[in-house]
């Protein structure tokens, strides 16, 4: 029991940090630009593909730097030549633009790398067990992922709260004209923010690609959960996103370990639900089977009870 609990907690933290890594760039872009970027998961996917491709050409370590850089450049181009033009037409236009972009990126990825998953295995440099608990190995690349995820949080937090450029970025969101009047290049700031957000997605993709499968459906697979985290944590709140990620990661992991159903709980309370009852089938669903539903359940509950999310400052 202790064994399962320890391993589950560890797995939960790993999964939570992966989710945070995925959503940090999105949170940044949303909080600083007010743009809900539907193509975020696609940039994550591009990061995974680029690191695999570059890894074959120049080796893993240069690739881990170059892939996010490339994603950042692509992000900058998207902002400069696409998003900026639709920006004036309001949020619906922006959302539709990024939505369309997600489809285009998926098709381009399919055209270049094919429909099947590429063999994006863990590079031998980080392919060893870091430590062993209760006979279960903990792979080194997951350790690297955790470190990068935490570093991302610290970097973003410090940059936004403690640096001058962070001040300008935050100012540009609420008072763009004033910031511009003070001589700052506001459109340039937006390009920078979008580029950083995209680069973070790319970096997440480099590491996430090892854990998930690097294939054209990758963006589809991670897209919904990323939005759940951003909404749950509070739109635009970095700390909120971290808390929401860990919450979902740990809850979902522990739920898988629970083989009991509502039926067992009722039985313990002395209430018998017979097979003939219309509620039998629903009550017999094990918590473990329902585990993947938990994030979405939390999303719905959060929107009903507290639409601004855990640490959000404005309503979704």
């Amino acid at each position: 029991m202790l064994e399962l609990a320890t391993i589950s907690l560890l797995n939960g933290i790993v999964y939570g940090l992966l989710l945070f890594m995925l959503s940090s760039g999105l949170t940044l872009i949303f909080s600083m630009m007010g743009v809900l970027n539907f193509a975020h998961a696609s940039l994550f996917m591009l990061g995974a593909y680029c690191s695999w491709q570059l890894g074959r050409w120049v080796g893993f370590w240069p690739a881990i730097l170059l892939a996010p850089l490339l994603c950042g450049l692509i992000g900058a181009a998207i902002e400069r030549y696409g998003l900026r033009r639709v920006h004036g037409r309001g949020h619906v236009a922006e959302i539709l633009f990024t939505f369309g972009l997600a489809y285009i990126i998926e098709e381009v990825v399919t055209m270049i790398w094919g429909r099947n998953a590429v063999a994006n295995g863990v590079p031998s440099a980080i392919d060893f067990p870091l430590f062993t608990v209760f006979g279960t190995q903990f792979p080194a690349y997951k350790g690297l992922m955790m470190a990068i995820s935490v570093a991302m949080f610290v970097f973003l937090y410090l940059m936004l709260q403690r640096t001058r450029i962070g001040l300008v970025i935050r100012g540009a969101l609420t008072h763009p004209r004033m910031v511009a009047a003070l001589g700052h290049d506001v459109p340039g700031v937006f390009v920078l923010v979008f580029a950083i957000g995209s680069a973070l997605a790319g970096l997440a993709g480099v590491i996430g690609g090892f854990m998930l499968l690097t294939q054209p459906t990758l963006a589809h697979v991670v897209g919904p959960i990323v939005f759940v985290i951003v909404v749950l944590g509070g739109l635009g709140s970095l700390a909120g996103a971290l808390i929401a990620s860990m919450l979902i990661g740990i809850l979902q992991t522990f739920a898988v370990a629970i083989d009991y159903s509502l039926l067992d709980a009722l039985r313990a309370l002395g209430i018998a639900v017979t097979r003939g009852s219309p509620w039998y089938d629903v009550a017999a669903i094990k918590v473990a089977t329902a585990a993947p539903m938990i994030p979405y359940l939390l999303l719905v509950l959060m929107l009903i009870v507290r639409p601004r999310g855990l640490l959000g400052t404005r309503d979704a």
Partner: protein
Amino acid sequence: MRAHRRRVVAVAVALALGAGSAAADVKIAFIDPLSGGGASTGILAQKTHQFYIDAINAAGGINGEKIELLSYDNKVNPQESLIQLKKALDEGARYLVQGNGSAVALALTDAVQKYNERNPGKEVLYLNYAAIDPALTNDKCSFWHFRFDADADMKMAAMTSAIAGDKKTQKVYLINQDYSFGKAVAAAAQKMLAEKRPDIKIVGDELHPLQKVQDFSPYVAKIKASGADTVITGNWGNDMVLLIKAGRDAGLKVNWDTYYGGTPGTVSAVREAGVDTLKQVSEWHKNAQPDLDTTVAAFDKRFPGAENEYAYWRAKTMWEMFAAAAKKAQSNDPAKVARALEGMKMSTPLGDVEMRADNHQLLQPLYVSTLEKGQKYDAEGTGLGWRTDTKVDGKATALPTTCKMERPK
């Protein structure tokens, strides 16, 4: 002069029409996922079918007519499949080929059965090359449905016989996808292990959501905690690859008895950790024969690249039987071809095969194989290849059926 010209035009038109009717091919509708998550398997199957159809056409076609494969994307969705079937029927298809997803197959057999009852003389014949829910050849069987892959129970029988022979197996964990096929695999494993090795304990019977789980670590933790020495899974696609990947990451030491360990990506995900432990049940693997079959080698040459790794031997059997049945029937009419297929026997490079007349299930040799080093042909360029542990002859794979087929008069 004018009359002459008119005559020339008339001849030209007649020629064109004549050519048109000669080219009135036998249209076969291929309804499977060609986009989205299932696209990689669907497109590989499409290429394989086209490959064998081209071979039939190159040899003169069937009864002088060429076969044309029309493809329809169903996104592995039963409703979408029915819409595509209607489209295919409108475009003149009289044969249907499908394989991915038993839920789709169940919807299609039902639709084909009803269509044929209402449209006598215009019947459609359904050739199933991969959907292996046992119900399709038992309670839900149809005269118009023929299955060319061994069903989940037949594969489980081969797998459990191999497991029963290994005295070291004590604790078995079942993990499957939460839908009709996954449940069928779990039920068959429970029943057959209890019959063959009552001393084996089933320490877990897990159903997880279909193609939705990204991180299988929590499931691996559960398998580890249960103390299982063997895991049985019918998982396919991403669910297979991600499960085995999570097992490798955690250093889980178990035997993996799988239906789809040969799924593209699985061997490269598990690599050395799968040696001696990853097993699969299939109708073919690359080392099943001493030398690669000539058609397989030709396929590899025509479709190079990792995503085109040959996987559908049963498609070869299916098309060869189909051509033979049309020849025997001396007609390309689906009703006559269906009659000819019933009970048809054929010999293949791997052994004799027979299409059962009572439930339209193909009996073909099955292989239980293990991933090993130093095999002649490797998988996915990993240097590791499949080695046959046991081969079950086609006849020996037969199981009793509950099928009560309504035959057309």
